Structure formats: C-alpha cells, structure tokens
C-alpha cells in the first residue's frame, strides 16, 4: 500500500498538467473558432490565387 503515497500524488500531478494545458489552450485563443480550426487542419497551402487588382493594373 505504501506505493500509493507516490502513485496517487503522481496521478494528481498528471491531472494538474492536463488542466494547465487546457487553461493555456483557452488563453491562447484555440477555442475562438472551432469550425475554422476543423477545416484549417485539412486545407492545402499550395493553391495560388490571382494577385490583387492594383497589381494587375
């Protein structure tokens, strides 16, 4: 049973780590646009778009 003295606080520390990660992700704005984040993950970045009007002259 003595092992619990180490294991239980360890489990709590891991939980605390998870809580810290959640609070950090909340603070850094990762929950601001859940719909957009879902799409960003699968979008390709290599599709060029025509330059803006002023450059085309």
């Amino acid at each position, binding site marked *: 049973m003595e092992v619990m003295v180490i294991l*239980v606080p360890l489990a*709590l520390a891991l939980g605390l780590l998870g*809580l810290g990660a959640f609070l950090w992700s909340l603070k850094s704005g990762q929950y601001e*646009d859940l719909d957009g984040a879902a799409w*960003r993950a699968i979008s390709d970045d290599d599709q060029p*778009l025509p330059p*803006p009007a002023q450059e085309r002259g």
Partner: protein
Amino acid sequence: MLMTRDFSHYVKDVDQQVAHLDLAVEGVTCAGCMAKIERGLSAIPDVTLARVNLTDRRLAVEWKKGALEPALFIDRLAELGYKAYPYEPVRAEVEESERSKFLLRCLGVAAFATMNVMMLSVPVWYGGDLSSEARDFFHWLSALVVLPCAAYAGQPFFQSAWRALSAKSVNMDVPISIGVVLALGMSLVETINHAEHTYFDAAIMLITFLLAGRFLDQKMRQRTRAVAGNLAALKAETATKFVGPDEISEVPIAAVRAGDIVLLRPGERCAVDGSVVEGRSEIDQSLITGETLYVKAERGTQVYAGTLNISGTLRVRVAAAAEGTLLSEITRLLDHALQARSRYVRLADRASQLYAPVVHATALLTVIGWVLAGASWHDAVVTGIAVLIITCPCALGLAIPAVQTVASGAMFRAGVLLNAGDAIERAAAVDTIVFDKTGTLTLPELDVVNGAGVPDEIFQLAGRLALASHHPVAAAVARAAQAKAPLPGVTEEPGRGVRATFNGEELRLGSPAFCGADAEANAILSEDPEVSVVAFSRGDRHTVFAVRQLLRPDAAKTIDALTNRGIAVELLSGDREPAVRHAAAALGVGAWRAGVTPAEKIAHIEALKAQGRVVMMVGDGMNDAPSLAAAHVSMSPISATHLSQATADLVFLGKELAPVLAAVDYSRKAMAVMRENLTLAIGYNVLAVPIAIAGLATPLIAALAMSGSSILVMLNAMRARRVRLGGASWK
C-alpha cells in the same frame, strides 16, 4: 462633387506601425471561402494578417499603417465575391464572450477536480481492507484538490447568490451556494476528526454539472448575438456627409455627429434623424408611421432613420437625440411603457423562492428531531447537512437552463433570435397576437403584381432600364425582371423617369404621363387604388406595371395555424383604412383597426391586458416600439428600425412569417418540458429526502442520486428540440 469613403472610425491601432480592422463577412461557409479570402487579402502588400473566423463569420485584418485605406479591403472582398462590412463589437457582446471564457475556465477546473476526486473516492466507497490511515490520506488529498478548485469554480454561483441576497431576494444560486459551502465545511471537519464519510466529491460534482449547463446556455446566447451583430453590420448603414462645401464622404453612422449635414439621394434610406435644410422630394415614412402613402418633404420637414427618399435629393441636418417631435413623443411613450412593464418573475426564481425555505426548514427539523431522539449534536448536524447535500438543487438548477439552451438552439435554426432571456417563458403563455401591417405582415420591399401578363422581352427591357433609376418603384421592376445588365446611355429626367435608345427605338420608364400611358394607368388605379403604377414605353407601345407591398408569402397560412392553436389574431396599423381592410380580408383577420397612432396602439394593448389576455405584439416600425414594450412579449422582423429591434424580445429573419408560429410552438413546448423537469427534480427529492433524514445518505448514495437526476433532466430537456406542427415536425 468629390466622393470618398471613410472607414477610419472602425480602425484600431495595434501599435505604432500596425492597424487593425474587424469585418463581418457574408457567405463564408467552408474552408474554400476561408482560404480564398485569407490568400486574397494577404497578397496585398503591407497586409500583415488576414484571418477568418468561420464560427462567427468575421475577418480580422492587420496592415502596416500608411499606404492602405480600409475601403480597399472591402473592394477586394467584393471582387472575390463576398460582401463585407466593418464591424464594431457592441459592449454586450464583448462582455458575453468574456463571461463565456470565464465559465469555460471554471468548468475546466471543476472537471479536473471531479475526475481526480472520483479516483480518490471510489476506493473509500468500496471500503474493503482499506486501513483508516489510508482513508484519512485520501480524505486529505480530496480536501487539497477540492477546496481551492471549488473556491475558484464556484465563483459564478457565489457571486450570483450574494447579489440576490444583497437585493434581499432569493434565486437558485442561494440554496446551491449554501449546500456547497456547508458540504465542504462539514467534510473538512469530518476529515480532521478522522470520520468515515466526507462529501467532497458530491460538492464538486454539483458544481461541474451546473457549470456545464450554464456554459452551454451562455454559448448559445453568444452565438445568437454574433449572428445578430453580423446582420446589423452587414446592413452597412452609412451616411453621405459633407466634409467641405462641395466635398462629400461616405461614413459609417457611428461617425455622424449632431449638426452634420448629410446628403440623401433618391432611392436612399435615411440613416439618421434630422430635418431637411435644402431640397424637395417625396419621402416614404412607412417604416416610421406605417403609412404607405408618400409624404412631401421640403425645408424644415423632419425625417427619421428608416425614411426612404423617393424623388429628389435632400440635404439633412442631423438632429441631437430626440430633438424631432415624433421621435421625442415616441421616446416618451416608450419610457413610460418600459416602466409600466410588469416585472415578470422567471420560473426558476419562483421555484427557488418556494424551494429554499422548504429545504432549509427540513434540514433544521432533521437536526432538532435527531437531538430530541437522543442523538449527539455532532451526528444530528451531520445528518442535517446530508439532507442539504442530497437536496442541493443540482437537477433543479439544470432543469430550466438546459431546456432554455435546447429550445433557443431550435428557435435559432427556425430563424428566431432571442433578445431577452425570459422571452421563451413569456411567449409560451400568449393567447393573443397583435400584428402591425406594413413591413410585418407585408414584405418590406415593393413587388410587381401584374408581371404575369407582361411578355418576357418587354419585362426584361423594362427591368434593364429600371436598373438606372433609384426610384423604389423602378427598383421593384428591376428586381421582378431579375435584370442584371443595365442599358447603356440612359438619361434621367428628375421627377418623371428614365429613357434610353435601344435598337433605334426610344425606351421610357417612369410616370404614366411621361410614357403617354395615362389611360392604362387609370384603368389599373380605378380597379385597385392601393397600388403604385410605373409605365414603360417602347416606341409607341405602352405597358403599365402595378407595384405594391405584397403580403409575406406564408402570411395567410401562418395566421390560420395560429388561429387553430386557439390564439386570437388582431391587426393594428398606422396605415389608411382601405390598405388595412384589403390586408385583413386577404388574411381572414376579423379584428383590425386602421390609422392607429402609437398612443392608441398602447391603449389597445392595455385594454386587452386588462381583459386578462396575454398579448404578443409583432411590429417593425418606430411607431410600434412603445407598444412592443407594452405587450407581454414582442417580436420584430430583422428589417425593423433600430428602436423596435432593441425593444423586441424576439427578432425573426427571412421573408416568411412562419418564425412567429415557430416561436409560439417552441416556447409552448419548452415551457411544458421545463415543468416536467421541475416535477422530475422535485420527485427525486421526495424520494431521496427520507433516506437523508433517516441518516442513511452515504457519500456514494449522494453522488449517485445527484448524477442520476442531473442526467435525467438533461436528457428530458432534449425533447424541447422538436415540436409537432399539424402532424409534421419542425426541422
């Protein structure tokens, strides 16, 4: 005249070099749009950030100060195919988003504590060969985890309870806070005394469940507000302001000050209140007074936000707040009506006012009873607190907000936005609905009524010619013909019409006299004096279009359905008698009155209320605002004036009237489910309290009872998503 667009009002400084602009964007629906917009704007030199928020349909742009004008982004987005407009979050929205972040933080903390305390509690519940030292160790660890977490995550409840108590009233958070604090305090004392039972797990679980309910509720409200905010921004209300004697600039309304002179061209809707200083025209005040007949405007005429300018160009001096006679009269009536509005006590508060004293008295009686029966003070107090924990209104606290969230989500999908939190409860009791006519039962824009008899080719030509005119009647013809390509070389004759030469023939669109079509026009007008006419001539052949405000396409069906639900429908309009009579006859509404002033509307609603009826007012005009406030519950279309929309409890979107029916149906269903949930929650208490009084409520039983009843009411709340509509269900 020189014309510029000035959006500097919306631009914020990030630092010395970088400027920031928020835009509401219409039509962003997928990843493709997102990438297209972001790449399209990032390609502009000096742009440092372009990021779309797909959830809120907003775009944030940042750029190096100097060369770029905000109007450029709007033009670029228009090129890409998106309508966008600068957006300034209102204070309420900023506060709600802060609040929702805070609730999510609390929820995270509470959920962490609940999960970890469960890990510590299960072995204690199981017992087995757990030594008393190990049990104490687990209890102390639980205390260490729960006490700080509960102190943080419980803030929303403690604060709200404190506010209620300071105001000498009781809300649901008062028994919740008392229960939590006593449970934690007792558990701590028990831990110090090496006792067998502690209730740390039950207390933190209660907080977690309740926070989940509140967070979802908040999220729904925030989403509604974001949609409403975008719609308001995309109306793109600007004024053309004189910045020099001969120089004008298009500025957002928020940047217009009293005393400014603004230009109002034909076909434009006035966005400010003020008086005419120069020019002559006809104006359409229907959004203000309900009167569809045009009014003459000249020097000194008062105009209000929402007025449509018809024929000539006007210069308007912007008035200070409520300077105008009609506006100040309406403001006075509105203030009066808002004060008199009977203060509705929400169902949850009524329940807690009954509940709190009963529960606290039961707990007290339990303590006294056990002491009289010979138990020690310690045991008696522990049993009394166990009663409080078992009855702590977890299910009761969730019973109503959960339904509220589900129902407002369903209403949102049906095109109804909630302005007031208690609107659902008030709308459920409605037995009389009073409609305004213009803009509420009818569509806000004009439509061609005799288009079916006109040959396609003629209709197309008339439509293309009409694109050159700003006159609202011409705009209706252009819309009905779905014309896209304007004709070249069109000249406008002020006050008469437009003309152009097409394939060697002269085309004219305008007044019947201008087109030589008086005979045809008079024939149409004698048949139906309520329509406006516009004539089109090609060479010497004439066509006359009859134009009027049409009823919303499903108005008759919706009113029929409302009547079938036992709701009395009435029509009160500021418009003239023939127009109102015509609409009432078409809709089958027996009770109608025409030419009603704002004060008379209020008087009528008060009379209905005095008969014991529960009245919903549906209206859009500025003249409806006081009666919207006077009714038990009120609704406005999204096209309504600012004043009405701000006063209304519910706002509906789209061309149809069906959202009014949906609002009633969903509210009734939601109210029924709320009552069921209250019954379920109280029924659970009736079962659980005797166990607690008998002193048999172990922490395991408390935890099971609390989670079981909470899940039960949450599942039941889901039923508020669907309502029956004469056999078919809303989707």
